[in-house]
């Protein structure tokens, strides 16, 4: 087999043919999942009451239960519970079965199985993320097309509102996993010299749980969409139609997946580092990914909790958030933003960390002030849990506390400054090799500058009086999430593509995509900033004629970005199939992942590596 190195292929391919494990794959998962979902649906669905409200609640219960049972059924069908079941009856998987689960020698089939190899999980995440970004991006193009002209008759208000919400949640989920999913799973264990993740079966679980959330989210379309945006504020979410259940179930499933992945990544970095890799020798991407998931682990359960409470309000007439029966919408807003603000840094930090990993390689200088980078990340993560109510300045919840929340929010600019310092300090006195990943570093510097400064206005209470809920906010957070974090992830894709696929990323398409995306991006959000400054609210299907120029400019820019991403997608597919075969270390980098051949052996290293310095030993000695 060409996909295996000599050492592995010389071993007999394990074939525990009697075991149930060999019979299960995503296909059986699909079948069992559908059986579970339909079974639950027909078991529960008996609308006998004359009261429409009671019927509606019962219908919500049925849908929610069916969706969650689909997820459970899929996992049963793909064999996720075989291991725990064996433990329950006092056994464990045999060594042969474990090796089979690692997908050894199974070629392309292992990508459709419950495969415990971290490299397989990394590729599964990569394909999943690209798909989600493509779907979310298509929704964005529909939104922008509708907003090109006032009148907005390209799509109806109901479809538009659904698009806004589904674009939001699809992109948020994709962005949370865009760096830690593919690169955190494929590259990071090799980077720290580990043979695999700490909990390989949990690793497979985190991906397949996430996978089950995708059809659930898609089902929202067929249940009437969601009217709430991805913030899903109560009481609008309680009033919403059956499509809302798909949203709630998606978040519940997704939060479970992040909890599993977060625990796994943290444990791997703490416990599985190579001999000699003390904390001050850990590559900065690993530090960034760890801080990011450590922030996600406490954040997402509150989101899940808020969704469960919303579901209870919708199905069992509880009143956590329904003011009509004594609940509070502010409670929901708190739970949401206590997740929501750390979440933007969960997205941002790994993207930035990828760029910090790239800069020393392409400038041929050590990372400037490694300590500042860590202090910057840790400072951002620490402060990010103290700022959530800046999303609620205008809610009327507690105007007295606006001042303190403004102070904590503006303080985040100090650790963010350190991130600039580290990158600029590394660039200074160097001659950067202007390959596409390096161009992304420059794009990041500009985008994060704009995103950061506009964030300063928004953090300020008097200015937020005007800007809150306007298009200005939309432009601001796209600069930070898309312009900064996604740019970092795209740089990581091109940078690690040779290690993940064995082929170089097509250079010309990477440059064409880069310039289309980045220039289109500036036009797109310049238009949106001006629309916001003029006073256009966000999430509107239609607008007054006065905003026409800004919106038209914005839509033109959006098409530029769209073309750029299509070129990038073409680049991925083409390079993966026909790209130039990559050498082992095309960029001349010093981190451990470049010391292993492609295809990476099952246990990554023939002999466990011993680390004697940090990976940034570039440069001529300074006199």
């Amino acid at each position, binding site marked *: 087999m060409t996909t295996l190195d000599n050492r592995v292929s010389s071993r007999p391919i394990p074939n525990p043919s009697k075991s149930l494990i060999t019979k299960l794959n995503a296909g059986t998962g699909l079948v069992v999942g559908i059986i579970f979902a339909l079974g639950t649906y027909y078991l529960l669905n008996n609308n006998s009451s004359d009261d429409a409200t009671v019927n509606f609640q019962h219908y919500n219960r049925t849908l929610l239960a069916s969706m969650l049972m689909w997820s459970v059924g899929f996992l049963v069908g793909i064999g996720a519970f075989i291991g725990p079941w064996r433990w329950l009856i006092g056994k464990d998987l045999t060594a042969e079965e474990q090796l089979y689960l690692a997908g050894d020698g199974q070629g392309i089939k292992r990508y459709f199985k419950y495969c415990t190899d971290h490299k397989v999980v990394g590729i599964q995440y990569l394909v999943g993320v690209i798909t989600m970004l493509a779907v979310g991006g298509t929704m964005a193009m529909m939104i922008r097309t509708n907003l090109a002209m006032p009148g907005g008759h390209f799509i109806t*208000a109901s479809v538009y509102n659904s698009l806004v919400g589904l674009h939001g949640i699809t992109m948020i989920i994709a962005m949370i996993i865009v760096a830690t999913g593919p690169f955190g799973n494929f590259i990071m264990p090799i980077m720290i010299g580990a043979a695999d993740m700490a909990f390989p079966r949990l690793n497979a679980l985190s991906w397949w749980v996430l996978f089950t959330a995708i059809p659930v989210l898609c089902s929202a379309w067929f249940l009437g969409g969601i009217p709430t945006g991805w913030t899903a504020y109560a009481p609008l979410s309680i009033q919403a139609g059956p499509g809302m259940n798909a949203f709630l179930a998606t978040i519940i499933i997704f939060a479970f997946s992040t909890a599993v992945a977060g625990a796994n990544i943290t444990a791997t970095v703490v416990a599985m580092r190579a001999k000699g890799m003390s904390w001050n020798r850990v590559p900065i991407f690993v530090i960034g990914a760890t801080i990011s998931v450590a922030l996600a682990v406490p954040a997402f359960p509150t989101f899940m909790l808020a969704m469960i409470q919303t579901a209870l309000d919708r199905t069992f007439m509880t009143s956590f958030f329904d003011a009509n029966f004594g609940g509070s919408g502010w409670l929901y807003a708190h739970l949401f933003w206590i997740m929501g603000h750390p979440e933007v840094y969960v997205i941002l930090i790994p993207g930035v960390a990828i760029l910090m990993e790239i800069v020393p390689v392409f400038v041929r*200088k050590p990372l*400037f002030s490694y300590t500042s980078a860590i202090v910057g990340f840790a400072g951002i993560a620490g402060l990010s849990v103290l700022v959530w109510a800046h999303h609620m300045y205008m809610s*009327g919840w507690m105007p007295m506390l606006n001042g303190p929340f403004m102070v904590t929010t*503006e303080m985040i600019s100090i650790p963010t400054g350190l991130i600039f310092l580290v990158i600029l300090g590394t660039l200074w006195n160097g001659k*950067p090799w202007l390959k596409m990943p390096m161009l992304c570093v420059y794009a990041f510097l500009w985008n994060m500058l704009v995103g950061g400064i506009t964030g300063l206005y928004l953090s300020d209470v008097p200015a937020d009086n005007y800007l809150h809920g306007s298009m200005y906010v939309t432009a601001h957070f796209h600069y930070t999430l898309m312009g900064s974090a996604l740019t970092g992830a795209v740089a990581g894709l091109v940078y690690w593509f040779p290690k993940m696929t064995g082929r170089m990323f097509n250079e010309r398409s990477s440059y064409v995509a880069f310039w289309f995306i980045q220039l289109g991006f500036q036009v797109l959000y310049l238009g949106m900033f001006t629309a916001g400054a003029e006073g256009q609210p966000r999430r*509107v299907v239609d607008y*007054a004629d006065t905003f026409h120029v800004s919106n038209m400019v914005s839509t033109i820019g959006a098409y530029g970005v769209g073309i750029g991403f299509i070129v990038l997608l073409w680049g991925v597919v083409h390079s993966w199939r026909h790209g130039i075969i990559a050498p082992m270390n095309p960029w001349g980098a010093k981190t451990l992942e470049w010391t292993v051949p492609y295809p990476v052996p099952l246990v990554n290293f023939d002999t466990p590596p011993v680390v004697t310095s940090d990976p940034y030993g570039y440069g001529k000695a300074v006199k």
Partner: protein
Amino acid sequence: MSDHNAPELNPTPGERFTKFLKRKDVLETLGWAVFYTTGFVILGGKFYTKWMPTMMSTDMRAIERLMVIFTWISAPVCGFVLSMATYTFRHGHRGDTPPEDGPATRTNRLGISLFGVMSSLLALVAILYGLIELNSSAEAATKDAPNAMVVEVTGSQWVWSFNYPAQGVTSNELMLPINKPVIFKIISEDVNHSFWPVQLGVKADANRYQTTTVQTKPNKLGAFDVKCAELCGLYHAYMETNGAVVTTADFNNWVTAQGGHTA
């Protein structure tokens, strides 16, 4: 190391600084820094004044001033980041082989300290300015409150309605007399809305069963827009109405025409 070499190896900080300033890369970078900083100061002053709508209250004037000043505070940061980025980009390495190694500088105590202090000071200025602005608007509001007119604003899917309790008028348009402080008491009949009289520079959410209060003083005659700034369902985009700031006499006429009574 012999003693007579010491002065050359250890120049005084002043000498080192002059030598640093004379470096070609430093000079070019400084040039870019001046260019970008000036550019942002000029553009920052123009962008918001050009794009933001007519200012019809002191609150709106304060907001516009604040955005301009924040842009100016950020201008040196932009100058610093963009100048170094521009210099290194211009002198970057193109080609298929990696460039030569640069100096193995891992840290620079003076640089990091200066950066830390400067960025913290800029953040402090922004924080203090914001807090002072917040306080002065709160003080002005307290001073104006006793002779303010109350308007009860009700948001419901998808209309605004305004009740003037002292005048006994209810309307779907928001009429306000000039130079008279006004207190909006805002509530929702269903889901969350956000009351946004755009040109007045105030905003507050409308919640079910919880009144939120916001105060302003219109000081310019003319029409303004009232919008909803919180996604509230199907016709959120169309939840808007007209407002106008009129003279006291016109306001009284309007109240009478609506069947209300003037004080």
